[in-house]
Each structure stands twice: as C-alpha cells, then as structure tokens.
C-alpha cells in the first residue's frame, strides 16, 4: 500500500516528507493540491489538516500531519531499513531531536520570511518587503555562523551520520540557494558548503528534485 502525500511536490514541507520516504524506500503517491486555488483550505482537506497547511499523509487508515512529526514516524517505523536517520542511543536520538528543533525554531522562520519576500510575493506580482528580507538575511548569517562552527566538529549536524536533522534543512536551503539568490550564505562557509554539497547530492534528494521538475 502506498503512502499518499497531499501537497505540491515543489513545496518545502511536502519535500521534507518525500525526502524521508525516498531515503527509506517507501512507496508513495503525491496527491497534488493547487494552493493558489485554495485546495488546502477546503473542507475535505481541513478534515486531514485542520490548520489548512500541507502536507498531510494517509497510510492505509492512518493519517498524520505536520511534516516533522511525519518524518519522525517513518524514520522510527523503518528504523532498520536504509540509513539510520534517528541515531542509535537515547543520547544520540536526543541530539538529532535538538537539531531538528533548531531547524524548526532558529532557521525555518527566517528562511520562510526571506523566501516569501524575495521570491513568492514577487511571483504573485506583489511587492516584497526588502527591509524585512535584509533583517532575515542578517539573522540567518548568524545562524549559519553557528552551523559553521558545529560542522567544523562533525560532518553532519547531529554527529558523523546523516540524520533527520540534516534532512529537515534540505528544502529550505534549496530555496535559499536556487530561488532566492542567497547561495553565498552557504558557499562562503567552508563546512556549511561541504555539508550542503553532500546532503544535496544524496540519491534520494536528487531523485526528488527530478520528480519535482518533471
């Protein structure tokens, strides 16, 4: 039975889930939603995700939403298949969780707002707030300084293996580098750059990028 993933394949939060499913070789079907037509705010979707956001998943009769909860579920369910995305010991798992929280609280909002102002609003024919974009960029600079320091001590955020903590950053960094013209935030930092090169060249991520461009 395939996992149904509701949401556009090009959107960041569905990509977080799809990257995880591809890493774990879990069959899925993307059920596309037209966000500009408000599909995600319609009553039948709100039954799946009461906050009207993508993604939501349906796995047989089991339904979930919130991308970071979904990836934790599948990383646990298929712990012994494919790469170990969680860590082994209680302590290692806590450190993975910690950096997932960092992505959610110290990284995501800045990237979201930056991309909204520089990419999404202009695409919709609206004026982005360049002052807000600059503030986000300056704060993101400081966050990447911390990542640089961290990644000088270990190859990945939570240690020496690729985990959910790294995976969770893939969609946001792709937006920064490829759509928002903010690639220098990554390329100017030796260890962050090497880390991004590595995680963006993972077969699962490359397969997702191909699917998203088809």
């Amino acid at each position, binding site marked *: 039975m395939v996992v149904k993933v509701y949401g556009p394949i090009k959107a960041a939060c569905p990509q977080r889930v799809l990257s995880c499913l591809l890493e774990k070789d879990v069959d899925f079907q993307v059920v596309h939603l037209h966000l500009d037509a408000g599909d995600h705010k319609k009553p039948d979707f709100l039954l799946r995700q*009461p*906050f009207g956001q993508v993604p939501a998943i349906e796995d047989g009769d*089991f339904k*979930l*939403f*919130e991308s*970071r*909860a*979904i990836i*934790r*579920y599948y990383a*646990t*369910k298929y712990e012994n298949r494919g790469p170990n995305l969680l860590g082994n010991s*209680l*302590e290692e*798992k*806590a*450190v993975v*969780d*910690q950096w*997932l*929280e*960092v992505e*959610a*609280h*110290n990284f995501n*909002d800045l990237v979201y707002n930056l991309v909204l102002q520089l990419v999404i609003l202009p695409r919709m024919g609206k004026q982005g707030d360049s002052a807000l974009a600059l503030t986000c960029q300056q704060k993101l600079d400081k966050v990447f300084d*911390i990542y640089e*320091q*961290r990644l000088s001590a270990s190859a990945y955020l939570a240690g020496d293996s690729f985990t959910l903590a790294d995976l969770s950053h893939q969609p946001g960094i792709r937006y920064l580098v490829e759509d928002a013209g903010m690639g220098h935030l990554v390329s100017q930092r030796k260890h962050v750059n090497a880390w991004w090169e590595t995680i963006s060249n993972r077969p699962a991520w490359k397969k997702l990028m191909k699917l998203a461009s088809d």
Partner: protein
Amino acid sequence: MTIKLYGITMSTCTAKVLACLHEHGAEFELVPVNLQNGEHKQPAFLAKNPFGQIPALEDGHLTLFESRAISAYVAEKFKGSGCDLLRSQNPKEAAVVKTWMEVESQQFSPAISPIFYQSIIVPILYGGTPNQTIIDESSVKLGKVLDVYEKKLNSSKYLAGDFYSLADLHHLTYIYYLMKTPYGKLINERPRVKAWWEDISSRPAFKKVAAGLTLGDKN
C-alpha cells in the same frame, strides 16, 4: 550523577522542562542563569547552547538545548517511572503525540508568544508600552488555533488522545501566563479548551512549576 538544568524558574521554556522533570519524579539540580547580566551570551553558556538561549541540560557527557528536545529526552529516559508522556511503545500513538507537539511548536506558540511578550515582558522587563496592534493580531491567530483545539477536544480528553502527553504539557507555561492577562478570555470562552486547561494545570507536577512562574505578579 544528577541532571543539571540551566535556566530560571520564571522562564516559559525552562518551566516546560521543569514540568516534565517533576512528572517523572526525576532528580535534578536547577542552575540559575543570570539573564540580566547577559550570562546566557557568555562563552561558558554558549558552549552549552550556541544560540545563547535558556534552558540547557547536562546529563553526564550529554549536553542538550532546545526545551522541546530536552523534555522529550527526559520523557524517554524516565518513561519506566509510571509516566508515559510519549507513548513510545505504540508507534501510532507516539506519532499523534509528536503531531500535536509540532502543532504547539508551529501553530500555538507563534500565535501566543507575541501576546505574552507585549503584555508581560515589554511592560515588566523593559518598562515599555504594549503594542496593542500586535496583541490584537496575535489574538485573532490564537483564537483560530484554539478553535481547532476546541473541536479536537470534543473527540478526546487530551490533545493526542485520552491520555495526558507531552503535547499537552508543552502548552502549560504560556497558557499560565496568558491567564494572568485579559487575553485569558481566549481560553475561558471555549468550554472544552477551558476544561482541558483546568485539568492539565491542576496536575501536582505543574503546580510545583507554577509557583515559579512569577512574572507579572505584584509583590
């Protein structure tokens, strides 16, 4: 070796972890961090949390930051003590707990924290005037989130099911402070949310923590 938690009792994020530690009867030492003196931005603390935020936890060789990661670690480590806040033996229940933990993190907190900041932090710590526009906009957002909770709590006693979990616990400290402001009405106006709040805030573990949530109290 005892767990050390670095933070202060009146901080919402520190208190979140304190509530979890108390639920499990875990032994720990609270090490105060002097925020007024900027201790959290000094090298010794930045070595524990490079983002310079409280709380941070030390347990043997492990150092952790991010309150939700810390509380999840505590819940997992002490799950045998009669308290099962993560439901980790049942993967689907555990996933639903994680979902509502993410809801607290991604929907609830961004809506409530500006109300907390403007109505408590700004006047009390900075002697400033609350920005009513921000409060009003955030109140609308929080109202919509709580409408979802009201509906959810129609079908289960707690957010993730008929069991108290970390998803409920993570809401305690912000709501406690909200109830000290006029915006507590957002909770009181919704009968199931109100009943849920009265239930979770009456837990003995939280009452120990609430005693320390003293911001806004008149001396």
